[in-house]
């Protein structure tokens, strides 16, 4: 049987003679080693190689939703998301090129044009992953027409609010609530451009029967979409540190 056409990078037999499960590959012309099963993103981060991410969060399952972590792989014509692509022996990965920069900027511009991301009056101004990415990736303007959707804020929860204007549909809230808290309060309704995060069966958050009020969703949200009520502009600083600790504690319990 032949190897499937996708992804088609050279496999060779150079794994022979290496410790079991250790692969070698090149990222940006650097020789790096990796454990079998690791993703390109994980290996890049271990080696301090920057790949931009937005939906990815260490400690949560990976989705490959935002496409900001797209990388080039020699021998593969399409771009692949680093967060969900496992490394292979002798893979040659390029994490930064004019083409990638162009695509990443375009993705950001599309995200910005889709909702109402008004940084200047946002609770997360100065502490926002989307804003930081835009600055870091050199997004100086948005060439697409803004859609200016009319989106409401759900402030029915006693302590938190969700402003759909700032939501990028990264689904971190959905994942952390399901995978870590175990409540699965959050989910997505509708498809494509009309997709929205919802609580329970699209009830107001304050009326949710499953929400435990743990605030994990708020802390992992990359933008000002989920925030603590009463925080003024630029005051919402998220604390995601709990996630790796929680993971370690749970692993130790097992």
């Amino acid at each position, binding site marked *: 049987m032949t190897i499937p056409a996708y992804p088609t990078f050279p496999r060779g037999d150079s794994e022979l003679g290496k410790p079991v499960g250790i692969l070698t590959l090149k990222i940006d012309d650097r020789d790096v080693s990796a454990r079998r099963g690791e993703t390109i993103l994980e290996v890049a981060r271990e080696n301090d190689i920057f790949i931009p991410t937005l939906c990815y969060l260490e400690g949560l399952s990976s989705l490959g939703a935002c496409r900001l972590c797209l990388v080039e792989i020699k021998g593969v014509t399409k771009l692949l998301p680093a967060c969900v692509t496992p490394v292979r022996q002798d893979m040659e990965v390029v994490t930064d090129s004019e083409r990638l920069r162009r695509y990443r900027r375009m993705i950001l511009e599309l995200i910005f044009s889709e909702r109402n991301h008004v940084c200047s009056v946002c609770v997360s101004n100065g502490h926002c992953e989307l804003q930081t990415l835009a600055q870091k990736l050199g997004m100086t303007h948005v060439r697409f027409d803004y859609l200016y959707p009319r989106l409401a804020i759900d402030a029915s929860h006693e302590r938190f609010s969700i402003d759909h204007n700032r939501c990028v549909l990264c689904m971190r809230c959905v994942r952390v609530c399901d995978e870590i808290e175990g409540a699965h309060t959050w989910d997505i309704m509708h498809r494509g451009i009309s997709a929205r995060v919802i609580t329970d069966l699209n009830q107001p958050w304050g009326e949710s029967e499953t929400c435990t009020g743990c605030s994990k969703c708020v802390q992992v949200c990359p933008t000002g979409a989920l925030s603590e009520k009463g925080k003024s*502009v630029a005051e919402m600083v998220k604390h995601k540190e709990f996630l790796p600790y929680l993971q370690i504690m749970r692993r130790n319990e097992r």
Partner: protein
Amino acid sequence: MGKQLVIEPITRIEGHGKITITLDDQGNVSDAKFHVTQFRGFEKFCEGRPYYEMPSLVERICGICPISHSLASAKACDAILGVRVPETAVKLRRLLNCGEFIGSHALSFFHLSSPDLLLGMDADPSARNIMGVLEANPTLAHDGIQLRKVGQLVIEAFAGKRIHPSWVVPGGVNAALTREDRDKIVGLLPEAKTATLAALGWFKDVLKNFRDEIASFANFPTLFMGLVKEDGNLALTDGTLRVIDAKGQIVAEHIDPKDYAAYIGESVEAFSYLKSPYYKPLGYPEGIYRVGPAARLNVCSGCGTSLADQEWAEFRSYERGPLLSSFYNHYARLIEILYCLETIERLMADPAILNPEGIRAHAQPNFGEGIGCVEAPRGTLFHHYRVDRNGLMTWANMIVATGNNNLAMNRGVQQVAERFISGKEISEGALNRMEAVIRAFDPCLSCSTHAVGRMPLLIELIAADGTCLDTVQRGG
């Protein structure tokens, strides 16, 4: 055959406006109007936003007086929360407003109006700007630029940022003042005071050159309104409203700003996006009143700081009652700068302002409605909000300083037109005076209609049959 003159855009003011002057068959002025031609819609698009975003959202109404908006907004939010703002925060907010007044008044007096005052109303328009002032009187220009800088530095020292900071929050402020920043501000004061006193001395000297302007720049009886303290002294951030008539008699006082709607009605004219508030008990348009620097100094019983009090007494000695000409606004601005510098000096000596605790009261929204009021550099500013039980805005009403003066600015334009325009030709000096009367009010048209755009000036001369006879235009 009559005709109409249109001045558009009006130059050296903040925002976008035009003036139309209608002439009768003999070429005499039959009507003049001041139009604010931009529309912004803040009151509407605030709806649905959380109350705690408002202080920053409304700052975007203006880049010159964002502080005033954030203060009025935060005070409206304080009322929604139902909290008592801690003493340190009250003082810090007052200090911040002083910075705003210094910066804004310096901009108005030196950058926008001093070219008229120094070079004359009839000077060559190409030199009639801050660069011309720099050439003719470098010290004056330098002082002006310095004073504006001091105002902006004061704002930065408190709020962390000169324009559109997010330091003022519902319930107080969100960061304490540091010793270093306090010392930095204190270090700026002596030179600023010297510059202000020098400008005051110079201005009092040149006042005599402007008898015609004093006599015609909105010089008519109206009511005046402003905030005063318990003892009747000038108040800029916290106080109650006092209204006086043209003779100086107190018409109403100790009005809690939250009762503003009982005293101020709002009317709308088809020729302007700026609403025309009026003093309700007198009806429209008889309830014409003025706010702003000269109005404040007319209304108050003193300033409460030593140098400003001396200057205030001299200011009030120019007329038996209130000073009716809006030309005196220039004068009043300098006195208010002095008052603010002295107030900063006094408050800075109070160790309480460095208290890192007690700068913010926390609460959830406890009331569905809140009204906040401060004196902005251009006059009394009201923010009135309603929220739902989750704290989301359902309704907003703002009366901005410039709006209060709308009726008076219109009458002022008419008065200047009648005095300086006759016949079919418009002289450059007359054109400039039409603008200068508006400039005396230092209106902020961006604020007043809560729009974007540059400020060009167009005067159209329109005949009685509606045909345009002459147009004078200046690039924006």
